[in-house]
């Protein structure tokens, strides 16, 4: 049997069974979930036959399932995350109802992602794209919170905008190329007109850009990421958003660089860069850890898009590398936030503080992830950013580099804010009884942290696969040794050299830091004696995680003023108002309707008269 | 209400109805072809089955030689009166000034048989110049185009008597 189909069956069948399993008992469901998670993961990494191709004739189309190296690497990311998230989910979702429903959708969405990666033709891609979309949408609204309708609808609308762009592109391809095969499309693409290429390309980019949260299509992301249960957000931001990246990669490289409209790629890069900068600045002013990380996701995805958009060998390489990294650390961060949420009951900076003593392992894994995020050497994030900057400088995109650098600095700020706001500072009595999260939660987090450390130390482990996938995109000759990447002009960047010298010291330093922080944190309440028993005002509060960057916010007020959301809202309201008016055509009076009929008839008579 | 004092037996009434309907059928079809006649017999049979009860009270009892004779007399008399009266109305209508004096008068009829009353009423109506507005019990209310008297006795004499004396004999 075709192994690709088996994988899909594991996920979709597993999803359906999970529904029933959870309805039997939560434990049965949990066991099943973990089983499916590991089975899928192991099957993907160990047993999947990448060379297999399956053609299914359905509804007059040929649906093709085939995996290539480029898509495989994204699949690998999912395969890593899935079992860990599954484990993490067991305690995280304790006490929630409708778990069968939740996990069915969970596995469906993962199945959808794999389907997208396996798709050998646009139709298959689209089908799985939509399955992924609606299952993730249903998860977004799963909690039935007050916000859910608004957030869900927003997510759905933007998803639909994306999906419809994609669909438009696909049917245009079908009509003009007479085949929906992805590889065939890229093969014959150079023969098509510039207009067609630009049109199809832009539509595709809009389609994929929505999931990659490229501005101005990002509006849904902060809301959706923060509303969803964190165990899914880790997949959402970690893996699902990468499907957008995957698509953008396909399009930018194949459509723009291989058929010679690199300008379009530049534009994409600019979109990515701007997204990175703006989203970072939005992340800064968030009051909630979830939303901060959500914005951060948008920003990070911007980097990746910028990397793909530049379209040089190194930039693409960096983009893919960053994508994988982002998948890992962002998943980890959301898991950490989830742990905090579960243990402390809130993710609001104004309420949280000094959880480091209570949740040291969570803190540790979050710290590792934040370091990767901020691109601080020696961990892997640094390598990625380094490559990205280098690729841009060598290809002359200085302005973008400046942008990204600005974003990077600000990124450091919000990363710090996150750490400080949640884990450091004055202790609060309220959180006295908070305990470290369940091992099922901490162990997966720590495992990811471990991956991140290993990847930072031995980036070459990843390079092997990335280089292979680069070949699939048509970039041959990317050479690497273990941890050594040869850049475009022949110099090699010896990652291992940089890394190995620093890593041990750094890890030790971190351990010490954690320990010191743990020791020195005091247990004082905000109702300390120095306020004479009065509740402290905001100014008196030692812990100033609220309005952390207020001066900054003031300085950049002009940026925040021009948000895109009101524009969308106004547009939507305009449409609604218009149809509210049009609606009055149906006056309720039968005679008016009769007059319409006569008018219609008269007009047709008139037209007929003028034609003949 | 219009109860018959002495009803004929059901079979007789049925047969009577059947016969009458069949004759009318023949009037409709005006043919003596076998299928038509058989169909007519069948249809009138069915109809008689449903309607003999209301259609007739006495069945063949009414058909006596004297009755038939008086009927003929009545019809001829009626036609004559009608023609006479019609010319009268013609005169009225054609006269520019229209010499009319309309009004509603009443009289008591001596008839007891409701059918007879109806025939009287219809005859009065068909005769131009008068028509029956209503019958209450034995009282007839007559609209008269050219009222000459309002005295019921006189009215009876002028309007009803010519018919009624024959009717009394017919429905004896």
């Amino acid at each position: 049997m075709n192994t690709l189909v088996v994988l899909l069956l594991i996920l979709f069948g597993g999803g359906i069974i999970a529904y029933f399993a959870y309805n039997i008992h939560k434990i049965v469901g949990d066991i099943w979930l973990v089983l499916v998670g590991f089975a899928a993961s192991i099957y993907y990494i160990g047993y999947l036959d990448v060379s297999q191709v399956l053609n299914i004739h359905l509804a007059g189309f040929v649906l093709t399932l085939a995996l290539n190296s480029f898509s495989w690497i994204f699949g690998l990311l999912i395969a890593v995350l899935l079992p860990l998230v599954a484990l993490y989910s067991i305690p995280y979702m304790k006490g929630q109802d409708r778990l069968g429903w939740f996990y069915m959708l969970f596995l469906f969405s993962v199945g959808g992602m794999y389907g997208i990666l396996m798709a050998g033709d646009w139709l298959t891609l689209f089908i799985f794209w939509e399955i992924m979309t609606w299952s993730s949408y249903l998860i977004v609204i799963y909690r039935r919170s007050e916000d859910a309708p608004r957030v869900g609808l927003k997510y759905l609308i933007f998803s639909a905008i994306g999906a419809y762009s994609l669909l438009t592109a696909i049917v245009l391809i079908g009509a003009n190329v007479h085949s929906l095969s992805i590889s065939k499309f890229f093969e014959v693409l150079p023969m098509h007109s510039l207009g067609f290429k630009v049109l199809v390309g832009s539509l595709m980019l809009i389609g994929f850009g929505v999931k990659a949260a490229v501005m101005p299509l990002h509006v849904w992301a902060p809301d959706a990421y923060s509303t969803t249960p964190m165990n899914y957000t880790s997949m959402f931001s970690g893996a699902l958003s990468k499907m957008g990246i995957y698509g953008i990669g396909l399009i930018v490289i194949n459509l723009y660089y291989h058929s010679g409209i690199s300008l379009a790629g530049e534009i994409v890069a600019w979109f990515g860069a701007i997204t990175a900068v703006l989203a970072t600045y939005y992340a800064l002013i968030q009051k909630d850890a979830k939303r901060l990380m959500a914005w951060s996701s948008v920003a990070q995805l911007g980097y990746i898009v910028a990397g793909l958009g530049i379209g040089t060998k190194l930039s693409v390489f960096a983009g893919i590398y960053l994508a994988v990294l982002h998948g890992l650390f962002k998943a980890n961060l959301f898991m950490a936030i989830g742990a905090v949420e579960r243990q402390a009951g809130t993710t609001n900076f104004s309420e949280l503080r000094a959880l480091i003593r209570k949740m040291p392992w969570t803190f540790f894994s979050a710290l590792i992830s934040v370091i990767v995020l901020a691109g601080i050497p020696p961990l892997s994030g640094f390598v990625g950013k380094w490559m990205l900057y280098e690729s841009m400088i060598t290809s002359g995109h200085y302005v973008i580099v400046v942008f990204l650098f600005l974003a990077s600095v600000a990124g450091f700020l919000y990363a710090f804010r996150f750490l400080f706001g949640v884990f450091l500072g004055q202790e609060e009595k309220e959180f006295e009884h908070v305990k470290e999260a369940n091992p099922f939660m901490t162990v997966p987090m720590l495992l990811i942290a471990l991956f991140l450390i290993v990847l930072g130390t031995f980036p070459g482990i990843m390079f092997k696969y990335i280089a292979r996938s680069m070949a699939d995109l048509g970039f041959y000759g990317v050479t690497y040794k273990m941890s050594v990447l040869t850049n475009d002009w022949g110099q090699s960047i010896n990652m291992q050299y940089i890394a190995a010298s620093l890593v041990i010291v750094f890890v030790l330093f971190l351990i010490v830091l954690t320990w010191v922080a743990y020791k020195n944190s005091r247990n004082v309440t905000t109702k300390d004696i120095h306020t004479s028993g009065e509740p402290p005002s905001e100014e008196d509060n030692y812990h100033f995680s609220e309005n952390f960057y207020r001066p900054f916010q003031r300085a950049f007020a002009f940026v925040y003023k021009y948000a895109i959301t009101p524009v969308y809202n106004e547009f939507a309201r305009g449409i609604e108002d218009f149809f509210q008016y049009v609606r009055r055509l149906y006056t309720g009076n039968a005679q008016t309707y009769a007059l319409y009929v006569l008018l219609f008839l008269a007009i047709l008579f008139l037209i007929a008269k003028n034609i003949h | 209400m219009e109860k018959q004092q002495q009803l004929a037996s059901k079979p007789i009434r049925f047969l009577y109805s059947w016969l009458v309907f069949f004759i009318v059928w023949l009037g409709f079809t005006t043919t003596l072809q076998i299928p038509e006649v058989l169909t007519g017999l069948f249809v009138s049979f069915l109809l008689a089955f449903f309607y003999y009860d209301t259609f007739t009270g006495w069945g063949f009892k009414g058909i006596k030689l004297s009755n038939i004779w008086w009927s003929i007399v009545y019809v001829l008399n009626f036609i004559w009166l009608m023609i006479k009266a019609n010319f009268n109305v013609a005169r009225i209508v054609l006269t520019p000034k229209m010499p009319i004096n309309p009004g509603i008068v009443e009289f008591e009829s001596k008839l007891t048989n409701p059918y007879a009353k109806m025939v009287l009423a219809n005859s009065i109506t068909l005769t131009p110049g008068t028509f029956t507005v209503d019958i209450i019990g034995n009282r007839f209310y007559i609209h008269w185009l050219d009222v000459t008297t309002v005295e019921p006795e006189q009215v009876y004499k002028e309007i009803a008597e010519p018919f009624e004396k024959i009717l009394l004999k017919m429905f004896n």
Partner: protein
Amino acid sequence: MKKAIAIILLAFIAVELFVVFYKIPFGADRMNVARFYLENSPKKLGVANAVTAIVVNFRGFDTLGEVTVLFLASTALGSILFRRREIHTRLSHLRTSVEASVIVRIAGRFLVPLIILLGAYVFIHGHLTPGGGFQGGVIIATGFLFLLLAYRKFTIEHRTITFVESLAGITFAGIGLIGIFLGKTFLENFLPAGKLNDLLSGGIIPLIYIAIGFKVAAELTGILDTVLSISIDVKQKEIESQTEKNE
């Protein structure tokens, strides 16, 4: 405003229609399939009245539909106006508080059967004369209308009406279906055509027309009864509101 628009539109439409119809010469012979009907309704069907041949045979399917429309109308009327027939029958004495004059009542006794006889005559001879099931049915229903008007207490058993209209409908559709079971098609004639202008001619056509006659009579009677009983509802309402007031 509405009137002005309507006048302008209608004037335009009417003129257009007139211009178009004026192109169709009046009194001209433009028969196509009709030619076939004329030649063959006496020859093949033995039906003297070509219209009847068309109505009941050549285009008998239309007529089945038409019968259905009537049936539908009577059902629809019942459904639109009344909730329960039982109530309506129970309260039928409320239909009128004025008795018809004795003349009308007596006339009803002998006129109604004659009217019904006339109706029967018309639909039985539908294949020979311009009449037919519809016309005959209408005449019979007129007879019942007279009864309804003349006798306050006259009620039509709805069960009977239903029975007749159902049976007649089944007969029509059934005669059509028999054709199929005899290896022909729906509504195809399976009886001898007979001699032109004989009562027993036209194969199944007179049978169908008789069924139609019964059906139309029953349906129209039902419709008329329903319509005449509208006042029952009103009166019942009045009585109800009065008793409410008294309480």
